[in-house]
């Protein structure tokens, strides 16, 4: 079997890779604060890319862990109607956990004061989570129907606890390309068809040390082990994810002469629900002989 697998022809290379942004995608969602307490107001931000069509909007819901499934919150899609906010029944939406609609209504959620009451006292330090459910739409022109494949549905857990060292979203401080530091927001000019080592530089406090109370009731000091997910539209990477402290990938720039401006996105996840991201803007020129 092993040798067969090695010798076998597999067409998976012809399929779209996860780092390839070729349709509407929700890549990251950050809650602020990343680990709220009951009564806190939580706001949300998202990295949503839509290369083919302009982004129309995104609807946001929240539900409890008990009310969620493997597919996030159980939301009736009919509640969203055609996607036009004017067509929506706000009361029905709020009853279903509606918390916002970008860009019109920034999503925000007030953690109920009794959110942790069902947990034993000792478990409230570690807490539980609420599920956030996001449906992103492309912009529709007059008379255009929304196709099922045009919609991206995503869900994200928001930890809620009384932790003494609550989590924060990791911050990306900047970039390095082939070892050269790139200022945040700057655009990098690369040669077409060339390979570059692209490194994401995390902020100093991005990797947090926190206190965890284990099953025996003892407190442990733990350090986050974040990982990075890489995305682009054109070109390729040598791998899709990297685990800190390996924060770089090899980027193979496209050799298509019609491509002038591109971008690389990186999303950092701290495995505790915290999330941050950054964009590296690129332009291309012909490689020198």
């Amino acid at each position, binding site marked *: 079997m092993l040798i*067969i697998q090695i010798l*076998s*022809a597999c067409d998976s290379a012809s399929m779209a890779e*996860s780092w390839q942004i070729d349709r509407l995608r929700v890549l990251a969602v950050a809650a602020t604060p990343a680990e709220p307490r009951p009564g806190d107001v939580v706001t949300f931000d998202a990295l949503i890319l839509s290369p083919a069509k302009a982004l129309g909007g995104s609807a946001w819901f929240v539900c409890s862990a008990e009310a969620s499934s493997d597919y996030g919150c159980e939301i009736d899609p009919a509640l969203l109607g055609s996607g036009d906010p004017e067509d929506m029944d706000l009361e029905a939406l709020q009853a279903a956990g509606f918390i916002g609609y970008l860009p019109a209504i920034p999503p925000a959620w007030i953690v109920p004061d009794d959110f942790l009451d069902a947990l034993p006292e000792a478990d409230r330090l570690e807490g539980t*989570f609420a599920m956030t459910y996001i449906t992103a739409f492309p912009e529709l022109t007059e008379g255009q129907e929304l196709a099922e494949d045009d919609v991206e549905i995503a869900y994200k857990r928001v930890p809620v606890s009384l932790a003494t060292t609550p989590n924060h979203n990791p911050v990306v401080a900047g970039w390095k390309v082939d070892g050269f530091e790139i200022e945040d927001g700057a655009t990098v000019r690369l040669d077409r068809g060339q390979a570059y080592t692209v490194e994401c530089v995390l902020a100093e406090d991005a990797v947090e040390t926190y206190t*965890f109370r284990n099953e025996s009731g003892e407190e442990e000091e733990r350090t986050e082990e974040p990982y990075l997910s890489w995305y682009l539209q054109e070109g390729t990477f040598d791998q899709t994810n990297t*685990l800190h402290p390996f924060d770089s990938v090899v980027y193979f720039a496209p050799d298509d002469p019609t491509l002038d401006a591109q971008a690389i996105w990186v999303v950092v*996840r701290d495995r505790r629900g915290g999330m941050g991201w950054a964009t590296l803007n690129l332009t291309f020129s012909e490689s020198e002989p």
Partner: protein
Amino acid sequence: MSAWFLLLAAHAALADTPAPAPPPAEAELPPLVVEPTLLEFVQAPYPAAATAERREGSVRLLIEIDEAGLVTRVEVLEAAGFGFDEAAVEAARAFRFTPAQDATGPVPVAIEFAYGFVLDSARVEGATPDAAAAAEPGEAPITLEGTIVEMGTRRPMADHLLRIDSLNLETQTDAEGRWSFRGLPPGSYTVRAVHPGYDTLDKTVEVVAGSVTSARLWVRNQSYADPGILGSYRRETDDVTRRTISMDEARRIPGTFGDPIRVVQNLPGAARAPLGSGLLIIRGSNPEDSRVYVDGMFIPYIYHLGGFESVINPDLVQSVDYLPGGYGPHYGRSTGGTVDATTRTSFPERNELRWSTDALDSGGVWLGSLGKEHEHGVGVAARASYIDLLLPAFLADDGFSVVPRWWDFQAKYQYQGKRPDKFSVLAFGFRDSLLVSTPTGYAQGTDADTQGDIATEYSTYRVGATWDRAWGNHWSARVAPSFGTDEAALDVGNSFRLIQTKYTAEVRGEVRYEHDEHLAVVSGIDAIFGWADFAIELPFNPASFAEIDPLAEREPYTLSGTATGWGPDPWLRATWKPLADPDKLALNGGVRLMYVILPDENEVLAADPRFSFRWQAAEKTALKGSTGLYHQPPQPFQSYRPDDKPAAVGAEQSWSSSVGVEQGIGPAVKVELEGFYKDLTDLIVSNSNFGSLDDSYFVNTGVGRAYGMELIVRHEPVGNFFGWVSYTLSRSERQDRPGEDWYLFDYDQTHILTAVGSYKLPYDLSIGAKVQYTTGNPSTPYSLGVYDVDQDTYSAFPTGAYNSERLPPFWAVSARFDKLFTFKAWQLLLYVDLINALHGENPEFEQYNYDYTEKTYFKGLPFIPSPGFEAKVEF
């Protein structure tokens, strides 16, 4: 003119039995371990009519030989006329053979024999060899002498005929292969060596006055390959469907790497295993529902890594019995099929050393016997893989490495002397390991706990003895104790580690009372006792919140301990043959009690009544059927509960029935058609209501059914050809819980067609081909999933019911070419297996992209050319 014989073919005569003897049921019989050899050839007088017309001819005979080696009946299969037939029959009736033997001792057999008549113009008409010998100058000094030795084996040839036609002289070799002529005048002579089954050899020698000329004559056997079984008239009647393939057949089937145990996957009822893994998927059963034995010892794995080769060296395998269902109470603890590999029970008097190498591994075996009368048969084999040394040539130098390794050994002692006790000891073991390494910094998924090397290994060791004894004409007994260990280990990264060491002691025993040829009763026990040490290390408790919340903090979880279990499993079987001709009808009834005790965890008790019959309705037609219960205890891990309380998980049950017909067509072709139905109840499935430590992980709420029809048309290895066409039409379904939908079994394959053929060409060439076609396995369709932002993965939406679609069908054409080179002292077989020679598409699994918007197939069987060689030397 006189007659002398030519043996044109004297092997593998699997012809049908003419009346009054009942037809054979070759495929149901244990194979012969000792073939009959011609001890006493009787020369037929050359028929006068043929002499008058100067005719030559060959008569093909079917000769039946009894347990003592005496000829009981001779039938002309292919007449030659001119008086040849009558003369050949009369002479053959006086032949004497060594008895054929199977594992139980001497048995009657039938062989095909070609009796040839050739005019000898050099001979004086009316003279006989004896008369010519009498004319030799007996007291004259020896002037020409020598020995006759078989090429390739260097075995001295006794009773070989030598002639000097120019002097009308002939003689025979003695037991050591020596021969001589006396009083030859100086000159050049052509010595001709003639013997059935050997090429006639002419050698010119020079006789010099005053000296003795010596010559060693090397004669070439016309068929060096192991002839395997010859067929037997005895018939096992307790197992309705027992298919036995000869070793020679097994070795020549393309795509099996010469491994006889892999051959079962080409027989009816066996579904195609994914990725050629060798999993036994028999009559719609899960792979873990079928059991594999080696000399009666249960082993957990029968194949090395990758499923290409079994863990027993083919040179030590005597037979492989494949029982897809309907077997008697002597097999148990399984609801699927059974494969029983038997190692050699007969070893050659001369030493044999064999060495074989293929693309995967290399190994040797020594076969021989010790003692004055060669009463102590011994075989030792060992084999090791070297594919790990070759793989780097096929892999890019990018920091990834795959290192598969395995080795195995076997040692067998067999008492093969004249005492009534038969005793044997078999020890064997194997170890497989696989290490997959990735470059530093390469992420294997995003889970921090799965980073690093992946390593797995498993090993098995067994030692077992078998003692057989008969008392008088009625009583016999067998005892077979064994002991062994099984180890398995898995490491994934730094956080997952599973280690288990299992010790197993088994005792199989049976006492047989054979009242007469109409009634026999066998009482037996199949006892097993096992205990295991295990240790599990996981990055989190599988029963904790961390299992469902990827953001929850993980706490390392370890579980270690010792588990024990045992089961005595007594059984009873009776065979009643109520008709005057005992071979006309056999009724078999039996019962097996399965009792498995896992102290403090579980106890399972079940009774399995089983019944089968076989009715020889006509000379070449037999009807057969079976029905019975089969129970299978839960796997040890299925009896585990997190709260350490006794598990409420019982045995799985199969009520299995079959009915079939066998029809012989001519001397070599046999057709078998069999229908089966299995009603599966109490199947163990995961507990959907598992919610706390007070629950069992598994419950017996599953049910299932498997039914179908199996057909095999088989051409026995008569002459130069053997082959079969096997076709299975089946359906297997499951329902996990009451009220839920039925779904297709994961390996349900509606059509399974396998055609195998092999033909022996001149010059020791042979060519074989295999064609396979099977319906694709069921699959479940998915569409664009929902994105889990925390884990960077998509949860797919199923767009249809579980297993509601199918993969495209599988088909493959494989070929094999063999060429045997025979040198004076040794033989060399070169071969090449061309697996999937026509590059058939072989989808094994559906493979979706990251978000389930695109789908492709993982193709499992590419074109694989696999060359190899086998060398053999006797000394």
